């Protein structure tokens, strides 16, 4: 038996660089004088940028590492196209979230008790991002579950991190308790699956589980269903969505943006790996429930978002929270469709569709959060502090570019031109549903798209109304937030002009 493994460090670089950066930030925080702590932000941003750069050399070949010494076909880590795309999305999302945090931290250095503690924040963010980057490359259930927990454990702390916040700890506790329950259920499912298949490697499970002894068949099916629970929670699908609005509202704004994109993508990637990777033969077990969950999730999310009053406290954050639940429903549609198609190629295209949608959603949703951060920054000092939808009235008169960018992001989320890429992503999801014969789900989604349009367009229309108090001068936008908005907007614009860049994954490009 060969005990020596060769580790392909280059393939491992994206999560590894992030993890190293996390440790560097944590240690540096101890030694830096208080006045220089701002440098940590740029260490974080630099680390994430480096991790993103590490994706480039891996792009065109499927590398694997941590393979069994006596069976090189079975590997725990695979940097294939799917993994790289999800890593691109989560690292990019973490980068944008980090940029949004820079102005929030500025108050902390000046003895502001309400601010975020910088060093801890950056460490937790980077740890969570490294888990999210590891997750899509994991090819056995143990690594997968560990990666999922590495992604979410720091997130609980991130949610409750703000000192002096009344809602933060409660939100964190809510998030933690429901998440841990879901994880426990998921682990139970994993153990059932292990009992049935005798292996933790996804490809082994795919081959062995349908062949399991007949008396274990029920156990195997129960295992499949329970394993899904753990992942569905992270996507915030109904009925595991209750934590979302409170958590987003209580969390610092960038963290809410981070959870809505990175947390969701990690859950989605895990779900895709488990369903199409480990249980392709059990499509009849997970396909129909996922389809029902998708329909319920989008309906609940959109109806709740519709009922958010524009001038209620925190309405902008609550609206984005509910809209992210609705969007999670759309994201689940292609995964559900993957359970209904016969051949592996079509299932792969369905996963690609979910990824394409997630890429679009990640860019524009973080863009929307970035503009929100800008407005909150502008309105700091006034009591509601810009977290209401009503605070966006007349933004166009005040900050034309930011207003145009937000209008574009919202129209992308709604899927209306000029948000072309949002429209194409929706078309892709519809296509996968029609392809799989899920006509009813497609019609439910069509109705939901119309409902969602109401609140997105209502917000968009508000931006262009006459300003509330025209005399107010907007402050200078912070460089980091402007960069984040510009990045998100340019991604969305480029994709609108060349949708092929992400749509290629929906048609055999994955």
């Amino acid at each position: 038996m060969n005990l020596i493994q060769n580790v392909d460090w280059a393939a491992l670089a994206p999560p590894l660089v992030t993890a190293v950066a996390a440790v560097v930030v944590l240690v540096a925080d101890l030694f830096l004088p208080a006045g220089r702590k701002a440098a940590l932000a740029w260490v974080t941003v630099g680390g994430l940028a480096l991790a993103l750069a590490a994706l480039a050399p891996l792009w065109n070949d499927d590398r694997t590492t941590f393979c069994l010494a006596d069976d090189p076909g079975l590997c725990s880590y695979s940097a294939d196209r799917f993994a790289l795309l999800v890593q691109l999305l989560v690292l990019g999302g973490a980068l944008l979230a980090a940029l949004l945090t820079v102005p929030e931290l500025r108050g902390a250095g000046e003895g502001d008790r309400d601010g975020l503690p910088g060093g801890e924040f950056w460490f937790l963010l980077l740890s969570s991002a490294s888990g999210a980057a590891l997750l899509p490359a994991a090819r056995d259930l143990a690594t997968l579950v560990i990666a999922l927990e590495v992604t979410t454990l720091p997130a609980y702390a991130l949610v409750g991190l703000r000192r002096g916040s009344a809602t933060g700890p409660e939100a964190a506790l809510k998030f933690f308790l429901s998440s841990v329950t879901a994880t426990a259920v998921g682990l139970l499912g994993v153990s059932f699956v292990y009992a049935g298949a005798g292996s933790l490697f996804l490809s082994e499970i795919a081959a062995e589980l349908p062949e399991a002894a007949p008396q274990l068949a029920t156990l195997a099916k129960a295992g499949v269903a329970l394993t899904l629970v753990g992942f569905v929670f992270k996507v915030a699908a109904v009925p595991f969505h209750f934590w979302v609005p409170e958590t987003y509202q209580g969390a610092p704004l960038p963290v809410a943006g981070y959870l809505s994109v990175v947390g969701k993508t990690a859950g989605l990637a895990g779900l895709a790996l488990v369903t199409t990777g480990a249980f392709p033969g059990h499509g009849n077990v997970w396909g129909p429930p996922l389809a029902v969950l998708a329909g319920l999730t989008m309906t609940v999310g959109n109806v709740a978002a519709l009922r958010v009053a524009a001038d209620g406290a925190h309405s902008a954050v609550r609206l984005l929270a509910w809209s992210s639940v609705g969007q999670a429903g759309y994201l689940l549609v292609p995964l559900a469709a993957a359970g209904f198609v016969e051949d592996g190629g079509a299932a792969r295209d369905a996963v690609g569709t979910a990824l394409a949608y997630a890429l679009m959603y990640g860019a524009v949703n973080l863009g929307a959060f970035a503009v929100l951060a800008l407005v909150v920054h502008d309105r700091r000092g006034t009591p509601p502090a810009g977290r209401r939808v009503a605070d966006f009235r007349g933004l166009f008169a005040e900050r034309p570019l930011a207003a145009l960018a937000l209008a574009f992001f919202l129209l992308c989320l709604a899927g209306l031109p000029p948000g072309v890429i949002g429209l194409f992503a929706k078309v892709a999801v519809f296509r996968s549903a029609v392809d799989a014969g899920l006509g009813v789900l497609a019609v439910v989604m069509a109705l939901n798209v119309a409902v969602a349009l109401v609140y997105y367009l209502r917000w968009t229309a508000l931006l262009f109304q006459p300003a509330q108090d025209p005399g107010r001068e907007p402050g200078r936008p912070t460089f980091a937030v402007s960069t984040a908005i510009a990045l998100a907007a340019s991604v969305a614009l480029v994709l609108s002009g060349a949708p092929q860049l992400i749509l290629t994954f929906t048609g055999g490009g994955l």
Partner: protein
Amino acid sequence: MITLSESVQQALLVAALALPLVGALAALLPAPPGLRGAGGPDRDVLRHGVTVTGVVLVATVVLALAFDHDRPGAVQAETDVAWVPAWDVRFHLGVDGISLPLLVLTALLTFLAALYSYVRPPTGEGRPGPRAFVALLLLLETGMLATFAVLDLVLFFLAFETVLVPMYFLIARWGNGSGAERAAAAWKFVLYTVLGSVLMLLGLLLVGVRAGTFDMVALAEAQGSGLTRTTQILAVLAIGFGLAVKTPMWPLHSWLPDAHTAAPTVGSVLLAGVLLKMGTYGLVRIALPVAPEGMRFFAPYLGAFAVVGIIYGSLACLALVRAGAGGDLKRLIAYSSVGHMGFVLLGVATMTHSGVNGALFAGVAHGLITGLLFFLVGAVKERTGSTDIDALAGAAGAGLYGRAPRLGGLLAFAAVASLGLPGLAGFWGELLAMLGAFHPADGLSRPAFLTYLAVAALGTLLTAAYLLLVVRRICMGPVPAAAPVPAGSSAAASDAEARPAPPALPALPDLRGHEYAAFAPLVALTVLAGLWPAVLLHLTDPAVQLLLPGVVR
């Protein structure tokens, strides 16, 4: 008439689509120093709108002149570039005899709308400046032109959706009435249309996925071979629903009267003149050739809904025009559109050459005449401050003939054209549609269509009745020497566009120079199409014959 090489024609068509889009972006930027005129940036941006739409109009007219009239059935000025290879979605543009008239009509109406806005800027209390107005108008033009020029199902959907956001803002921001009314009308418009169009998308995807291509030319040639009967029926149901909302077909029309009442003049002109045509164009261009079996299944129902719409629209107009009903003139024209589009739908439902040609003809005629009518109502409203028929008619008739004879005469002309007087554009389309119903395509129930024909004929009578009543109540009547101001003063006060009416003598200024400029092309084309229908039918007929192979009538 003129000969241009294929590549020049291609460039013209692409330019006609790209220019408004670029122009819309440019409108948001400050004007470059060389283009700054007297009157400040507001005038500059309005002039920019006129220039861009004017250039687009010239491009489409040159395209029409260079169009090879010997083979109008063929797609010309064709551009075909891969856009999204993953789905085989192609950037496929081209014009044939069906789309060319609509393309020119769109460019013309948008240009006239821009011209009208230049002289009468859409400003006032509570309305944003003209910069956004021009940008939205140009974006709207891109979407409208693209709808008629694209030959790919996904692109068609994209273009179809592009018009929504600009039109929503035009109604909600620059419309008439209180803010809440405008907002409600704009919402109704957007929600109805979006609900319809997402269902249409499902139908388009069903066709595209099952047939393996999104190319409209290839799909039309296949004539639904490769699609099962069930697929075709489902596809026509979904696609037809979306298009029927847009057309609008009774009973899905209820967004239209509100939208028209609330929309500003140019919004109404484009809504009635072009946006409604996008629905019928889609039926002729997509539903008819791509899924003929599905269409045959639904044709009798479509015909029934169409004639109900004709009668319903006319009766609604008759109710509105009654003295004391408090009817709104714009609302009346909106309901009359429901009736007129009923004729168009009836023509499509017959699935015959004459019926479909009639539908296309009636569509263009309706665009010209109703565009003219909305411009005229805008002119009346500008002078009197009201569009309320009772307020306009006053106790003894508004007497437009006596007070503003040219305006009154033109209004009567448009009304008479709208009721389908032979010799004007409104006549031929409705006649051909009814002719098609007299002898519908094989496989369709002739007795049913004969019934529809009889009902539609009754509809023409009712149409004539209410339009003549409108003329009588608004144009005729004694000239009141020193009667109270006809304009409802409360309406005038609430409306920002209104100018204070003269206190004693309600003498109205007659047509002005810019109004002549805006109305004359529409009048001329109405007369031309009425006296010489062949100019349009020669274009559409060969293309229609290609869409309906095997049909002899």
